[in-house]
């Protein structure tokens, strides 16, 4: 059940109504039932998987909590750690099996091939359970937090199960921390119906739908066309394709997070912001502070810092950065392209950090004004180019395609397509292109608002006068109705059949 599906349009109001009508003490049970139903709409069997993961981490949490030891008790600490390691291994094992086993077998085949072997291993027909990466990481964060003593283990199984399966953010994040979401679930009985908050949540959801249905899905037509047939296009179109993908993945991903935040807000929960105008970032480091924030902070807190972070010298810091981003790449997908994508981001940061003193020297020597728009714009532009370059690997079907795509950008420059109408042969008609441009201008304005004034669109709209609120909200809804990419695929002309 997708957020932009008819099923969700029915499901969500029922859940919300029930949530505010039933006795407050039973609310979390109601949400748990709703969350499992939501998840089972994809694949009922895989609900058993999330249930097992929940049971295991729940019990693990209880045991870890019980074996919490005072400082100095080395034996107790070892046991304490061992339980955490078991919990981590089992959860990562499940994730690994479903997500990476075939990828690993492919690597084995490739390595064997290097030695002249024609080994072929039969791959298992595994269907990746929806959201497994998200809920596994969420459950792991809970176990680690309990281990660290940051939170106390949750004794109520159903509340914990709701924390793992809370439907707004179950399948695509934000990956919530137990300190934030679990504590809200524990206090769900105190949540009162607040019409302003509910309205704010609904407006947030509408904005998410706009991002998804008007921008991301429209960009997808262009991007799919260019990436699938990249060999038909010249450099300019390929650059446009790469830029379009950067915008598509942002709108697509951010839309889900936005709708999740909105849906949770309607229910009285506050989820963490996941995107904060990332393409306004002035460096790759800053980009990762505003892109998929819940994941990047997860890696920071549970991988980068435990590895030593920046506390063990520059070389170790750079190694830690590389390891963290390589694993982040692998988290995004089982493939070499994702690992390269992650590696590139790690490399950018390592190089950026290593060259920082030199860069500062140059700036000082050339008396460059760093506090003006042009300097910031240049940094922003360079950051975007670097990020977008890495996106090519993320989107390409395989590494060879990615390299060939990049090669063609440099060897097949065709600037004449900018004026001879060639741009309209990329998959979008002139009208569709114009709609997209207008939608992107709106996105730019909203992100600028967020970047400069740290304000969400819903908050901004709802502090305006009523007529402006109506104009924006109804305008957005009608734009989605008319220009959203949805409905059964059909050729409109097929309906206008009239042949004398």
């Amino acid at each position, binding site marked *: 059940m997708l957020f932009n599906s*008819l099923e969700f349009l029915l499901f969500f109001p029922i859940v919300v109504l029930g949530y505010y009508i039933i006795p407050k003490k039973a609310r979390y049970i109601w949400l748990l039932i709703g969350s499992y139903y939501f998840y089972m709409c994809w694949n009922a069997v895989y609900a058993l998987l999330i249930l097992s993961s929940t049971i295991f981490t729940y019990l693990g949490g209880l045991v870890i909590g019980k074996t919490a030891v005072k400082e100095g008790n080395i034996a107790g600490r070892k046991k304490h750690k061992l339980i955490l390691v078991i919990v981590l291994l089992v959860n990562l094992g499940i994730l690994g099996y479903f997500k990476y086993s075939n990828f690993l077998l492919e690597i084995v085949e490739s390595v064997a091939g290097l030695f002249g072997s024609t080994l072929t291993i039969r791959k298992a027909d595994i269907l990746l359970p929806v959201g497994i990466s998200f809920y596994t990481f969420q459950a792991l964060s809970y176990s680690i937090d309990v281990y660290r003593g940051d939170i106390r283990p949750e004794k109520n199984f159903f509340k914990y199960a709701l924390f793992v399966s809370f439907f707004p953010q179950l399948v695509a994040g934000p990956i919530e921390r137990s300190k934030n979401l679990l504590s809200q679930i524990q206090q769900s009985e105190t949540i009162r119906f607040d*019409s302003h908050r509910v309205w704010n949540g609904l407006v947030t959801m509408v904005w998410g739908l706009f991002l998804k249905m008007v921008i991301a899905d429209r960009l997808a037509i262009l991007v799919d066309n260019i990436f699938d047939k990249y060999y038909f296009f010249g450099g300019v179109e390929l650059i446009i394709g790469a830029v379009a993908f950067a915008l598509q993945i942002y709108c697509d991903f951010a839309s889900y997070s936005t709708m999740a935040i909105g849906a949770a807000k309607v229910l009285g929960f506050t989820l963490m912001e996941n995107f904060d105008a990332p393409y306004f970032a002035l460096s790759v480091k800053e980009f990762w502070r505003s892109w998929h924030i819940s994941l990047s902070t997860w890696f920071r807190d549970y991988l980068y810092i435990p590895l030593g972070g920046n506390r063990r010298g520059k070389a170790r810091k750079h190694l830690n950065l590389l390891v963290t981003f390589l694993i982040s790449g692998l988290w995004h997908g089982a493939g070499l392209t994702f690992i390269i994508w992650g590696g590139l981001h790690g490399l950018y940061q390592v190089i950026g950090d290593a060259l920082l003193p030199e860069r500062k020297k140059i700036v000082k020597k050339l008396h460059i004004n760093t506090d003006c728009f042009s300097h910031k714009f240049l940094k922003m532009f360079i950051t975007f180019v670097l990020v977008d370059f890495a996106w090519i690997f993320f989107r390409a079907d395989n590494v060879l395609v990615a390299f060939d795509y990049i090669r063609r950008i440099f060897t097949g420059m065709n600037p004449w397509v900018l004026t001879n109408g060639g741009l309209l042969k990329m998959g979008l*008609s002139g*009208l*569709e292109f114009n709609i997209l441009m207008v939608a992107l201008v709106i996105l730019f304005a909203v992100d600028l608002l967020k970047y400069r004034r740290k304000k969400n669109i819903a908050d901004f709209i709802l502090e305006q006068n*009523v007529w402006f609120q*109506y104009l924006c*909200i*109804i305008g957005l*809804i*009608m734009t989605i*109705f*008319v*220009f*959203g990419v*949805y*409905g*059964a695929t*059909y*050729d*409109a002309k*097929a*309906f*206008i*059949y*009239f*042949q*004398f």
Partner: protein
Amino acid sequence: MVRKKIAYILGFIALFFICFLCFHKIFSFKDGDGSFVMKSFYELEDNSVDVLILGTSHVFEGINPAILWEDLGVTSYDLCGSMTPMWNSYYYLEEALKKQTPQLVILDAFSLVPVFEEFSHASKYIKNTFGLRPSETKINAIKETTGEEWVSYALEYMQYHNRYSELSDIDFYPYRNDEPMFGTWLGYARNYTVLPFEEQYYDNQYMCMDLVEKEEEYYRKIITLCQEEEIPLLIIAVPYAGYSEADMYFMNSGAMIAEELGVPFVDFNLYRDVLGVDASTDYADFNHLSYIGSDRFTHYLARYLAANYVLPTHNKSDAKYMRWNQAYAYYVRDNFNHDIRLVEDVDSYWNLLHSLPNTYEIIINVPGKYNAENSTNVNDMTTDSDNAESSTKTTEVWLLRSGNASLLTETRYGYYYKKQLGHNELVVDENVMLWKREEIQFPSHAGTKVMVFDVSNQCVVDAVVIEKNVIYRVTEE
């Protein structure tokens, strides 16, 4: 505070509802074929239809209710769309019976013949459900056509929202450009194309072929529904040029089922000689009758009905039956207009234009000096225009009405003539005539340009350029 919040929510809901309504009005499908036929049917007075005619495009290009009205005094309606399968017809019938109590239902059996591959394409059928009002019948009709995807079709906006790329001014009016085609003809569409064919006859008239299961199921259901409602049903096959031996076998299967259930079945393809079908003039294409064939067949059908059924006859001055009177008047006028378009001789054409009543307005653009005083001969115009290069290059625009020509002068707005008809405008410029915001662009070189406009049928009848005593037609039917 609470009041303020309630007012805010109600205001929002009201505004949203208005916006959505506008969206629906503008974007919804308004095609003559499929959606408009049903919408127009709803506008008929309750219990005003005597003969309900179901079927495919064979019916709406073959049976003219205006002729049945004139010949028999019975009210009929062609409730069908192109490529209508039996299940669409079944749900049309179910819907029709909610408002009408026909004395006879005629069903064309052509959809029993699985001739086209496209015939199994759901998108061809689904359009036939768009005109149905929201009801259980509509949902069942959609379900039957689309299966599991029915919800996205039932919520029609999911289909028509994509129309933003094809919107035009006509979407902002109640009906589309082809309104007279379906609105005035009571479901009928007149096809002025004529294609000569060679008539084929087949001997083995007793062989049968298995029908498509679903078509047969709904074919039987239509028969059963009529029997339950005690409405006589006549199953026919309208003649068509592409009638093959295989088609005949499918029709035979249909006839056998009809016989089994005690319903008359007449495959008129087998009686083309009795009907007097002329294969050189009566077909418009492989599947449809031309206007000549349609007239011939409808007159014959009228005689057949008169001989075999007792149908009510109505007082033609009764306001209840105004739509049928209008349809017949429209039919007569349309035939006459068609005859205008057939004239090729310049003198005859000119004489005809002078004899037209004042419900016609003729705009004449002469690219040269022309003295219209007492002139009734177009040769005066064409001679002048042919020699326009050598004589004078003054362009004159004339309005001819009831045989009287009056010189039009260029208004300060730039056009020569403008006439408002309902929400449509006729605007005449030097070389362009604009009707329903569609340009009739004349060639700008020498030649007398003539546009004949029918005020009562509200259509451009003819647009020609006369040059060197030859008529060149700018518009096509």
